[in-house]
């Protein structure tokens, strides 16, 4: 067999081209000749001052890939603003948010809601269970889910990457199906309108700072009639004597750094003068929740406040920050199977004044314990009927 030399011939062409590229860029080095000549009094001129190109060669700028939408970059402003988004997590939980929104908290939902929160019939329970099984298990959408990590029990173990229903989709499917079930049980619910995936922005002055809430809601259920005031004006006056929690040495804006690139436009999800907010559904779609129940509950209050306030700024009449007619808004905050419900009455937009807003809430309720396939059979364990009955109570308010 003839022995041939190893040539690595595949590199020859590119080597040749690379040499041309490198050596083609001539750098003019200073030989020192110009300095010597000048010293001897000989005039030395830069060649470009004498020589000029034979003709004009304009270079045409061609946009090869036109931008679909111009990217709006917000300019940096002088006054910094604390922007509270969905990703904000209040370090001190509900107490911190009370200070931000100037609210007082009552443990327990209002009487008007609890008296309408009747027990479920067996038929209703069956339908809710069917809705849960479909949304969380039997939906055939398969999308790559986020990685599962159990750092405490199985550190370093790499779990099989799952394909299944993403958290956002589970929440949406379940909420819509539950809303359909609730509509059947409450007469006049067809008058209410539903808007999906809204953004609500509102700016406020708090002490000497500028704050802005920028929140996404999964659904805003609006009704042609506003929700009735829960506390009349005298009771609202009596709230002024209540004390606010003290979180010294932390400031109410802890965990929310003030930024310079913000936009001062207000917007409320449903910009119609004829529709008033009834219930706001917020879905917490981060699969790994960075905060505990206390933080979760605090966020519910903040969402309620932001939507009520944005709506009030657009529609309601305001004097010195106080509302002539308080705005009532219900909120349902969901994460996987946890439901946190609350009712919020906005009395004032003056966040440092005496007049206070009020928030009724109760600890979160799990809708079910376990929902999975066991030996190819769909199984739902630990179903809690209280959640649906509370939703009925909220939905029945008009």
């Amino acid at each position, binding site marked *: 067999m003839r022995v041939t030399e190893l040539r690595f011939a595949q590199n020859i062409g590119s080597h040749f081209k690379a040499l041309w590229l490198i050596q083609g860029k001539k750098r003019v080095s200073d030989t020192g000749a110009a300095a010597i000549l000048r010293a001897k009094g000989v005039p030395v001129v830069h060649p470009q001052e004498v020589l000029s190109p034979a003709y004009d060669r304009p270079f045409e700028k061609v946009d090869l890939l036109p931008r679909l939408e111009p990217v709006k970059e917000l300019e940096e402003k002088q006054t910094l603003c604390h922007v509270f988004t969905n990703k904000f997590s209040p370090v001190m939980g509900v107490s911190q948010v009370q200070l931000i929104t100037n609210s007082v908290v009552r443990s327990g939902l209002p009487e008007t809601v609890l008296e309408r929160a009747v027990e479920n019939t067996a038929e209703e329970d069956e339908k809710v269970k*069917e809705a849960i099984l479909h949304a969380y298990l*039997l939906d055939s959408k398969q999308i790559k889910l986020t990685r599962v990590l159990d750092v405490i029990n199985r550190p370093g173990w790499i779990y099989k*990457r799952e394909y299944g229903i993403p958290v956002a989709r589970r929440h949406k499917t379940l909420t819509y199906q539950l809303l359909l079930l609730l509509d059947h049980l409450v007469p006049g619910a*067809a008058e209410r309108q539903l*808007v999906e*995936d809204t953004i609500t922005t509102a700016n406020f002055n708090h002490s000497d700072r500028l704050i802005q809430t920028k929140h*996404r809601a999964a659904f805003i259920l609006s009704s042609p009639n506003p929700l009735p005031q829960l506390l009349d004006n005298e009771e609202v006056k009596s709230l002024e004597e209540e004390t606010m929690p003290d979180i010294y040495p932390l400031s109410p804006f802890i965990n929310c750094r003030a930024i310079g690139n913000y936009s001062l436009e207000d917007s409320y999800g*449903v910009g119609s003068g004829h529709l008033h907010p009834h219930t706001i559904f917020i879905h917490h779609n981060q699969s790994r929740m960075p905060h505990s129940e206390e933080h979760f509950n605090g966020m519910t209050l903040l969402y309620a406040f932001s939507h009520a306030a944005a709506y009030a700024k657009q529609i309601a009449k305001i004097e010195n920050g106080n509302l002539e007619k308080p705005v009532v808004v219900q909120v349902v905050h969901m994460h996987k199977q946890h439901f946190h419900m609350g009712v919020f009455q906005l009395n004032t937009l003056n966040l440092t004044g005496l007049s206070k807003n009020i928030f009724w809430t109760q600890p979160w309720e799990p809708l079910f314990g376990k929902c999975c396939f066991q030996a190819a059979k769909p199984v739902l364990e630990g179903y809690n009927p209280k959640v649906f009955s509370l939703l009925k109570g909220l939905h029945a308010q008009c």
Partner: protein
Amino acid sequence: MIKIRPVAAPSLLRFIKLEQVCTRPCHHAVAPNEYTDVPKYPPIVDMSRRAKKKRLKTAWHDKITKLPTVEQKLMELNLPKYYGYWSGHLIDVCPKLLGLNFIQYATRTHVVNGLPEEYYSDVKNEAERLTTAVTDKVEHLIHLNYNCPLSRRSFGPGRASERHSTQNFLLGLHRLMASTVDSTVQHIKESVVDMQPRVEAFWILGGLPPDEMLRKTRKNYEPSKELENDLIDRTMQGVSTPRLGVRVTDGLPEVVSRDDPLATSAFVPDNKLDPRAFGFRFQHKPATTVTGFWPGEKKEHSQLWLHSREFITKFVEEYGEHNTDVALHHMMIISSFTQALAHAAYLGFGPVTELTYPLVQQSAITDGQRWNFSVYQLNTCTLHSDLATNNPHNNILWLGEEQVLFENGVKGLNAEVLTALISMYLKKGIERDNPTPHLGSYKHLADHPASEEYREMFQSHLHDLFSGRGRHFMKPEMYLWEKIYKKDFNTRFFEARRRFFENHYKQKDPGQRRLDEYSPIYIPKAKRKDRRVKYKPMLDSEELYKYH
């Protein structure tokens, strides 16, 4: 007849001409009379290659038909191909300019212009009455969605925002419709709504011409020389993307009987070209058939599907306004066929198991303002081999004219559109006796008699297959340099033959690798139930898992 008994010396037998039948050994029961009056000849079997191949195919189809659960049937369809089928993808929102005739051929659909009036005659009066009750509310809904400034999050560039605004409108519209028809019918109250369900269906399409490569292969291989120009089957994967799907317990009644001339001898265009000629792309994918939910849901039949029409804008920009109908027909045919076939598969029928009763799908496609309604009747789902052209049945699509619900800014709704929509909601399903003749009494894997462990493994295997996750090791491919230097002009004859396209003792064609051809999965000692059972059993469609 000389009877020779095999005696002591076996060597003797070699030299004795055993022309006649030997006596049976004593311990077997002897038939009283081996002769019958009428000769019972065994069937004369056609031993040609064509016939042998057809018998193999039919045996596989029968095997699938006999399997007792939906999941087993779906798995058996996938068993022949480890790396998935190279199937033509027919996506409802990707219309091709000249592909309409092919789509009709591929789904064996006859298109009728206009909805079937007699089908809705029983619900028409009620629908008209309910329309007057709901007109105001629909006006409020339209005003909110199309006139009021809604602050919604950005959905990205392109037509996504139009799609989302249509979806928002449809969500509100369904709520309205559901509460309106509540007083009249029970089935909508009990219905379940899917938001953007995933609907895919797999079928085998016959009567297609062989491509150049296959013809060359056949011509160069002696036994298949005569089959050179035989028509072939290609696998098809249909994808439907509705915004909303309404599911109920009972399936819709048939529009026309399955024996009606419209369902047996209506015109369906013929096709003599490869699907790629029309622009349809082929990709490797397992045979995926899903209908928005996994088997186990109680509400298995669909009442109505609602689609959005933003993809038509792009098509029309490229090909002109006069081609709107092409895009519309493409969407309705593929969408409806995929949905109907997926439902059929979940009822025990499928690409190789023929229907025993027709399946009906109702759809509407809209952008809020412009509406098109359609009704689809699936009479046949087996389109393989010569059934693509010689099928006793054909499917029917009734597609209505475009109707406008409201004019821009002008008050006043077109009540006809609402009446048509409400009629679709009011149409009640019927219970059929023997709805699943090809499924066992337990229908789904959940109630299969096999052990729990096997059921769980089988279901997760099937879900993994349908998820579209890539394999660790992709299907082996012949690189270009190998094609040049090993296949076309073999300049490397001295190299050891190790690749799959080279002839050697353990050559395996990756395209022929079956789903159950894998190394057995090892069970670590700590996890074994029996010390001696080292490996997990292998995938088997009949017994779920089996030790070979």
